[in-house]
């Protein structure tokens, strides 16, 4: 097992912050959990705790950006995208201010904290805002490279990070290309498109499908917005069926974004693996992923269904 994406974020922020002196980091009393404390330790003069006040977290970051700084702000995804939604929309995205929202503890794998803290709507909320870029890294390496990208990019970015450790997928030589899908394996019978922590089980599902005589292409879509339309259309043309996998509601997230692309260009059968319009609950991350149908086995089942619909 590799590191959690939030761990990679804290380390990357500390390192990039040493180079880029305009980076300022704000947190809302969760710096030990979001890992901004790693930055705070290295660069105490550029770290500000706003306390438990997420609306002000976003508003203050907007002001810093308006004055030329590059603020990274962190809290749990629930509060970043949920509680402070309107501040993100009106104070950050409308004026296209250079604020990076690194939201941790996204999805069900927050675990024991339960449904009140499990953001399964944040991709949907963030991708609907004009000027916003939405990135969901799959592992620690991709998270580190995505942080470096966000620091250089001019404009608002929503970076969705997880609490739990995830398997390493990419090596050090991996290059993050904004808005570009990453093909992990090629196949001809269907394409499995996954994001975030679902990339690892998607890859495993493809291996299991081979045993059953089904050949799956696997795409990692780390940039949900702007989404890689070309890669999705090509997948639909080449393989004729798609399964999407995300630790997020099936409403409004990756599955919806992929559906939007294919229905307007090349409609093919689609199955969405995700949280089925329901709240989560307390439990161990693995137990939650099993109960809410986000496992390798669920992806395999969806793949078989979608191939059957071709």
């Amino acid at each position, binding site marked *: 097992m590799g590191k959690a994406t939030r761990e990679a974020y804290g380390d990357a922020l500390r390192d990039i912050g040493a180079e880029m002196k305009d980076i*300022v980091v704000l947190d809302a009393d969760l710096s030990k959990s979001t890992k901004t404390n790693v930055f705070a330790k290295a660069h105490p003069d550029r770290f500000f705790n*706003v306390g438990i006040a997420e609306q002000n977290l*976003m508003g203050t970051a*907007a*002001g*810093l950006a308006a*004055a030329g700084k590059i603020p990274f702000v962190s809290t749990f995804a629930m509060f970043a995208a949920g509680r402070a939604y309107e501040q993100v929309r*009106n104070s950050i995205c409308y004026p296209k201010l250079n604020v990076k929202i690194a939201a941790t503890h996204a999805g069900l794998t927050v675990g024991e904290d339960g449904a009140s803290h499990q953001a399964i709507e944040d991709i949907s909320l963030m991708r609907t805002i004009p000027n916003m870029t939405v990135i969901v890294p799959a592992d620690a390496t991709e998270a580190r490279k995505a942080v470096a990208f966000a620091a250089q990019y001019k404009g608002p970015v929503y970076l969705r990070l997880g609490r739990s450790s995830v398997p390493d997928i990419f090596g050090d030589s991996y290059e993050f290309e904004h808005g570009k899908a990453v093909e992990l394996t090629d196949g001809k019978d269907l394409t499995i498109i996954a994001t975030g922590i679902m990339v690892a089980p998607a890859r495993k599902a493809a291996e299991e499908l081979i045993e059953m005589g089904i050949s799956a292409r696997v795409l990692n879509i780390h940039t949900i917005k702007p989404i890689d339309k070309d890669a999705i259309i090509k997948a639909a043309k080449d393989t004729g069926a798609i399964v999407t996998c995300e630790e997020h509601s099936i409403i409004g997230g990756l599955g919806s974004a992929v559906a939007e692309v294919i229905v307007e260009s090349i409609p093919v059968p689609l199955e969405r693996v995700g949280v089925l319009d329901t709240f989560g609950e307390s439990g161990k991350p693995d137990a939650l992923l099993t109960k809410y149908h986000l496992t390798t086995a669920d992806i395999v089942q969806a793949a078989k269904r979608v191939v059957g619909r071709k």
Partner: protein
Amino acid sequence: MAEKLTAEQVSQLEDRARAVRRSIVSMVTEANSGHPGGSLSAADILVTLYFAEMKVDPKNPNDPDRDRFVLCKGHAAPVLYATLAEKGYLPHEELLTLRKIDSRLQGHPSMKDLPGIDMSTGSLGQGLSAANGMALASRLDARSNRIFALLGDGELEEGMVWEAAMFAGHYKLDNVTAFVDFNGLQIDGPVSEVMSPLPIPEKWRAFGWNVIEIDGHDIQAIYGAIQTAKTVKGQPTVIVAHTVKGKGVCQMENVADWHGKAPTKEECQLFLGELDD
């Protein structure tokens, strides 16, 4: 500038304020929508800021060392546009494009659209946080510029204002000066009846702010309060400005209905007559 304005300076600023009020009435009438009441109440504050205090240059609107102004009560956009036009950021004729399609003068200020707008606002409660962020950036960069913000009294009902107030007090942002345009009225009626934010000065004091109370239509008092604020170290300052909603137009004064209603063309002529020199 000196501690006190000369009588001549005050008189010139009063003329400017009258011109700004005429523009407000004209542009809201032409748009047939907008917020005249809370624009008129803030005219003297904006004119004093832009013509007697703030280091800003319309020819270099993005100067990182400039003083900055955040109109937290973004619906008072007409007073900001009219003041910026007086200052030379935009031609006066353009004021009549307010709220029309393709205009740079959006219903609420948009910094991407019009040079001179330091922050996009309109959704109440968010501006002071942005002002704090700017002030923090100035501190980090060791800039001596000052950040000004103007809030409505009804706006103080937004919880986020107090998150920002707590932040500025905690981080001792003495380069922030906020005004509260205390005209006593919000859309649905008197602030004390709708949802009382009173007592206002005590609340700010409790959050660690230096508080100055003034008559918000007395230019000498506005100027003096700003000068005092500049001398206060280790604390942000809030200037609670007692104002009259609709100030300058008899029929509009202290009438909540004029919060968000445009005058008819006939009313406009009458009101402009009243605002003549």
